[in-house]
């Protein structure tokens, strides 16, 4: 085994780790030593594109299907993620709405689940910073408190969007997104191909094209193919990180250790390390999404410059959250829902209805016989969420009454929303969670557990911007 000592050891190179590291390096002295352990490899976007075009690439050997990395006991539920440099920034679709302030106060405002120990107001400056780093495109005038312009102008509306925006004002806005509305540093402007998992024109923000610079910093050493499976903990402090590289066991000592992998692997590492917190691995999940096709009479939904062109908040926040879940509307045009009736080919608006869910204890993550492979138990959606689906079907015709609707077609719930949330939830005290407001483990005080793992509840908004802002916040307040 190799024994080396670092000031900071970080697991993973996705959003949570990279944004944390950026803030840490901006505050750390020149003599600090940082080790970053990445399970995957560097697999450039240009090489991923070659595969999509049917060409060969020497990097294809680094393609790692998510199914190979977890033991997923519910085959009807999918959990896609990327194992590689940049983590799921490679496969995300670039949606970056902020959370609503009440998303952080579900217990005190609505009597549901738990409050987060951090507030919207505390995260606000870090939201701006994360939006700047990602060069987010977005509108002025949002349903969440935000002043001034986004770094890039908003994407263009379709006629359907314009009508809904006119009726609902800032409850229906051009979606803030990390799909550039015009060329910006390191990226091209979005051409609306709607295949964002591998952007054909490199318009989507990724860690690779971010120019974030952290992995080129002289204080940082990055190891690829380093599979972390356990922490060596002595007297409630993490002393060593155990990992394998090329089949050989290795370890690294760190003053401070950061788990920045996704919730499955953060949990697996914690449980392998003997974490006895009864909530570790418990109550993970994600939002429920379902598509509604809105057939329009004598109106096309043409135009628009994005995959998710707009967000609707008409079913999001309000007293109904005492009884049933919030729903965020995504107006999108992928996959291309084309009608085949003569003269009506583009007379369709396609809305993704995204519902929050609750962290049910019946959904949990455990270890398996293979120390690298977490076992995923996902069984239930909450009644809170299912009731919101029924309410949406009742309310949507009225919400869309300003449009010439011919028919609404409700498609079955999607197999995933591309998010994995919870498993090391944030709380004020150790009885109600695993980490504190700075995502420091309640019991092991030199250990951060970052990312969506730490979310206390699962609001309907996409998690990436918030988890990135939380990483900036945690590093800023802790060093």
């Amino acid at each position: 085994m190799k024994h080396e000592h670092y000031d900071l050891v970080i697991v993973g190179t996705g959003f949570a780790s990279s944004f944390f590291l950026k803030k840490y390096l901006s505050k750390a002295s020149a003599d600090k030593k940082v080790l970053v352990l990445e399970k995957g490899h560097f697999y450039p976007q240009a090489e991923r594109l070659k595969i999509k075009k049917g060409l060969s690439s020497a990097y294809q050997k680094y393609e790692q299907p998510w199914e190979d990395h977890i033991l997923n006991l519910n085959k009807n539920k999918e959990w896609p993620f990327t194992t590689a440099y940049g983590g799921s920034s490679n496969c995300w679709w670039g949606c970056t709405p902020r959370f609503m302030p009440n998303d952080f106060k579900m217990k005190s405002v609505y009597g549901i689940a738990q409050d987060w120990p951090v507030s919207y107001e505390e995260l606000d400056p870090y939201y701006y910073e994360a939006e700047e780093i990602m060069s987010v495109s977005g509108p002025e005038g949002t349903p969440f408190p935000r002043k001034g312009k986004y770094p890039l102008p908003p994407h263009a509306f379709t006629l359907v969007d314009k009508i809904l925006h006119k009726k609902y004002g800032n409850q229906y806005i051009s979606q803030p997104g990390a799909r550039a509305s015009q060329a910006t540093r390191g990226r091209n402007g979005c051409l609306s191909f709607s295949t964002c998992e591998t952007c054909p024109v490199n318009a989507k923000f990724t860690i690779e094209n971010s120019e974030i610079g952290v992995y080129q910093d002289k204080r940082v050493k990055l190891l690829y193919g380093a599979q972390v499976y356990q922490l060596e903990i002595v007297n409630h402090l993490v002393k060593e990180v155990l990992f394998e590289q090329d089949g050989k066991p290795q370890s690294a000592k760190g003053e401070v250790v950061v788990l920045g992998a996704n919730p499955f692997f953060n949990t697996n590492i914690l449980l392998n390390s003997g974490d006895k917190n009864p909530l570790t691995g418990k109550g993970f999940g994600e939002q429920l999404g379902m598509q509604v096709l809105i057939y329009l009479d004598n109106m096309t939904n043409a135009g628009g410059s994005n995959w998710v062109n707009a967000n609707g908040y008409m079913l999001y926040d309000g007293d109904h959250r005492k009884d049933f879940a919030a729903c965020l509307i995504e107006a999108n045009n992928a996959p291309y829902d084309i009608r085949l009736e003569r003269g009506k080919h583009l007379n369709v608006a396609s809305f993704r209805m995204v519902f929050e869910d609750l962290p049910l204890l019946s959904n949990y993550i455990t270890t398996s016989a293979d120390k690298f492979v977490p076992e995923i138990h996902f069984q239930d959606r909450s009644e809170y969420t299912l009731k919101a689906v029924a309410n949406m079907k009742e309310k949507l015709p009225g919400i869309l009454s300003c449009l010439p609707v011919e028919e609404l077609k409700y498609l079955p719930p999607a197999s995933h929303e591309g998010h994995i949330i919870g498993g090391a939830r944030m709380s004020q005290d150790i009885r109600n969670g695993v980490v504190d407001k700075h995502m420091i483990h309640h019991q092991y005080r030199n250990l951060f557990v970052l990312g969506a793992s730490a979310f206390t509840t699962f609001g309907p908004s996409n998690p990436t911007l918030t988890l990135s802002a939380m990483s900036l916040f945690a590093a800023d307040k802790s060093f």
Partner: protein
Amino acid sequence: MCVIPPSLYFIAPGTKQYAVLAIEKELHYLKLAPGSVINYVNDYFDRTGNDTVSNLKWKMTYYLRLNYEKSDRLRDLIKYFLLSTDFFINKTDESKVVNYLGLYSPYLSPVPNPYSFVIYPKEDIKDV
């Protein structure tokens, strides 16, 4: 559940021939360039598989006289034909001849998102 007689597979007409007829029937109002449909069908079946099971499913669609409203298989066939032509580039103009441009792929073909600003620029979308 429909029971297909074992002999059906052997006596049914060619799947590709059926697919061509289905597209031409549904899109009868378009001026389809000669060879466009058969070239598309050849490419489509090359990519999506032309095995026994696939053949049998297509023949079920044919013999049950399903239209695209009842068959996702047929709907996809026609939808991807349109996406593989210049129909959307020409803003769904029925007066223009529809030419096959190659099997649709967002990474390879010249056809953009049919809804997008690439075809319908911001200035073309009326204000309300």
